[in-house]
């Protein structure tokens, strides 16, 4: 396991970097925000992602994908973060693909081609409260004929209202708090009894609240094993946590670069403010924090790609550390920009908003610090 990119990975980084910079820079996010887009992202861009091969990075070669790993997915995510590019990449091409890899051939054949083509969007219906607690899932799935009937509600389903299919985590047995007894279902967006209410979130994405009122699905809709959903869900969570951490490394680095540029230009008291030692020390400290976050994320990606059980621990280390570093970066960024940092016209505030939303995605700093403690036996 090497903690540096190999040649292929460096090439991918360069191409993802150039692509996001030219096709989906911050101005792209502004455009879709200001047109009050109800998806919160561009379907055309999603198709371009597919043309670049990004959408199939984690799809196995046997299923027509590139069969690459989490390092490669993370490379794309970092560039997405750096440019605040709005896209369904994290939910669809990382988390959903990780789930669908555990599905049978029929389901894979149904969804992978659309993802590969940049035509399909999948939403992850996981959260039932304001904070992330996957083991507490209570949404009920009862046996009904050949299939199941789902009842309950979900929230913070990013791009849920634009999704063609929703992966719904439900309880088929046991009680909230138990990891046994969960089952994952692929639920069609048009299923009877499914209603949605979408709201724009602080980062200009759209997130939905779902109500499932006796939604009927057939047995084919089950992803993985009935009552054994935790195994697949764990993989989804590790991928989503590591992936969102990678995106946050991009967000934090993007904010940091903006800020450092500003420090080198802005004059006050007759000096460029980057000359002030107090700001220099804070800048250097911030740089160190972002570097540590980058390393933690790369380690988690390595463990995931090696199928090493330590991925569990390092996904949490990565999400927590990326959360800390990225949050520091956007806070220092706004403060060091001074008044103009508070204006909508400057980009730094958009980085702060994205940080906040990503921070909540699949567990915040505090959730993951707690998890690190628990995994270490205290």
């Amino acid at each position, binding site marked *: 396991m090497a903690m540096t990119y190999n040649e292929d990975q460096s090439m991918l980084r360069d191409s993802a970097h150039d692509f996001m910079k030219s096709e989906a820079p911050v101005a792209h996010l502004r455009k879709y925000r200001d047109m009050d887009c109800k998806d919160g992202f561009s379907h055309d861009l999603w198709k371009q992602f597919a043309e670049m091969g990004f959408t199939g990075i984690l799809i196995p070669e046997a299923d027509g994908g590139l069969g690459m790993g989490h390092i490669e997915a993370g490379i794309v995510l970092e560039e997405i973060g750096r440019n605040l590019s709005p896209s369904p990449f994290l939910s669809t091409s990382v988390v959903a693909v990780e789930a669908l890899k555990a599905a049978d051939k029929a389901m894979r054949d149904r969804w992978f081609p659309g993802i590969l083509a940049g035509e399909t969007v999948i939403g992850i219906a996981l*959260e039932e*409260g*304001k*904070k*992330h*607690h996957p083991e*507490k899932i209570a949404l009920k799935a009862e046996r009904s004929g050949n299939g199941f009937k789902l009842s309950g509600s979900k*929230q*913070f389903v990013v791009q849920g209202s634009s999704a063609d299919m929703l992966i719904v985590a439900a309880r088929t047995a046991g009680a909230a708090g138990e990891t046994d007894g969960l089952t994952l279902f692929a639920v069609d967006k048009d299923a009877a009894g499914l209603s949605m209410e979408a*709201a*724009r*979130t*602080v*980062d*200009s994405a759209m*997130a939905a609240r779902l109500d499932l009122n006796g939604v009927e699905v057939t047995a084919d809709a089950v992803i993985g094993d009935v009552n054994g959903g935790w195994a697949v869900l764990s993989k989804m969570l590790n991928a989503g946590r590591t992936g969102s951490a990678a995106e946050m490394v991009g967000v934090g680095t993007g904010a940091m670069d903006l800020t450092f540029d500003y420090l080198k230009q802005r*004059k*006050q*008291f*007759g000096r460029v403010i980057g000359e*002030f030692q*107090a*700001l220099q020390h804070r800048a250097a400290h911030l740089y160190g924090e972002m570097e540590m976050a980058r390393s933690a994320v790369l380690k988690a990606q390595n463990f995931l790609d090696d199928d090493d059980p330590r991925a569990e621990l390092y996904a949490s280390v990565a999400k927590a550390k990326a959360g800390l570093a990225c*949050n520091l970066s956007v*806070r220092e960024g*706004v*403060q060091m920009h*001074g*008044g103009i*940092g*508070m*204006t*909508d*016209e400057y980009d730094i*505030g*958009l980085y*702060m*908003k994205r940080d*906040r*939303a990503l*921070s*909540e995605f699949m567990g*915040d*700093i*505090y*959730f993951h*610090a*707690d998890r690190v*403690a628990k995994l270490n036996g205290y």
Partner: protein
Amino acid sequence: MSDLESFRTEIRAWIEANCPAEMRTPARGDDDVCWGGRNFVFQSDAQKAWLERCAEAGLTVPDWPKECGGAGLSPAETKIFRQEMARASARSPLNSFGIWMLGPALLKFGSEEQKRHYLPQIARGEIRWCQGYSEPGSGSDLVSLQTFGQDKGDHWVVNGQKIWTSYADKADWIFCLVRTDKENKYQGISFLLFDMTTPGVTTKPIKLISGNSPFCETFFDNVVVPKHQIVGELNRGWDVAKYLLGHEREMISGMGGDGGTASLGGGFKDALGDEPILRAQLAMFDVESLAFRAHSERFMDEWKTGKAHPAYSNLMKYIGTELNKKRHELVMAAGGSDYLEWESKRSNEGKRARDWLRTKANSIEGGTSEVMLNVVAKRILDMPGA
């Protein structure tokens, strides 16, 4: 019964008798606050009545002299009045930069004529004021300001641009720092008052990251300002401005103290059972918050008795604003994905998120944290160097 106790009884009865029931509920948002001024549209009869009754009794500015529109209360009486207002959950009858900022400066630096002319208008909420300090090139470095007033005998002709003028688009008059001597950096600035309807004044709201636009850019194109509208001496406006900044800092530093709940964690108690680390962060924050509350009290006691260092308000501003930012970071964490919503009824159109973003300006406006720390190091700790 002591004099103060009988004053308390009296003022309590007055509030009881005069404050409409509607004015004893919290304001429903920024639009529901009374700012007064020529163009202000009252939101209700109760709001109008409450302002008029308070103004009549001098209680919009209880500690100002009666001839200036105040009630002439002593500091001890003023404190009691504020306690009784809080006790009755009575709204402030009037939010006003005239009361908070210009008034104190006029009381200290204004001519007798200016006091008689402007202060009663301010007290009655007839004129809404804004503040013209910052310029695009001079944020923390305020004295580098470039807006210039050319001497034309009995008036100045002002040209230049201000930024961060709060509610300039809604204000009737501005108090404004204008360079009147290009040779002298500090002693070349004058403190002028003028009407925002004077030809040549234009404003442009600035959209903030919170989505709101409380600030403007303000442009002056050959604006004529009569000489009698200067406060204090020619070229000594910096003294007035510094005095005012001190007041502003006190005001802003109060933010960390938290008017309402003592404990931040206590407000989220139901949610914290499953969040041990967040609970710990809130507990550590509450230590700071409660310590700061005690500290604000000590500061006020020392300030009033003249024991506080003159630069101490800079320290208060630094601590209070940093703490308030931290508070709102934790509020957002405690609120989780509920508080991420930005456009939804459920979230009151993202109120928590917008409030959180608003706090980021606390440590910038009225002097950045960095400038505050510079001042504390040099003036209070007597550290060497430039």
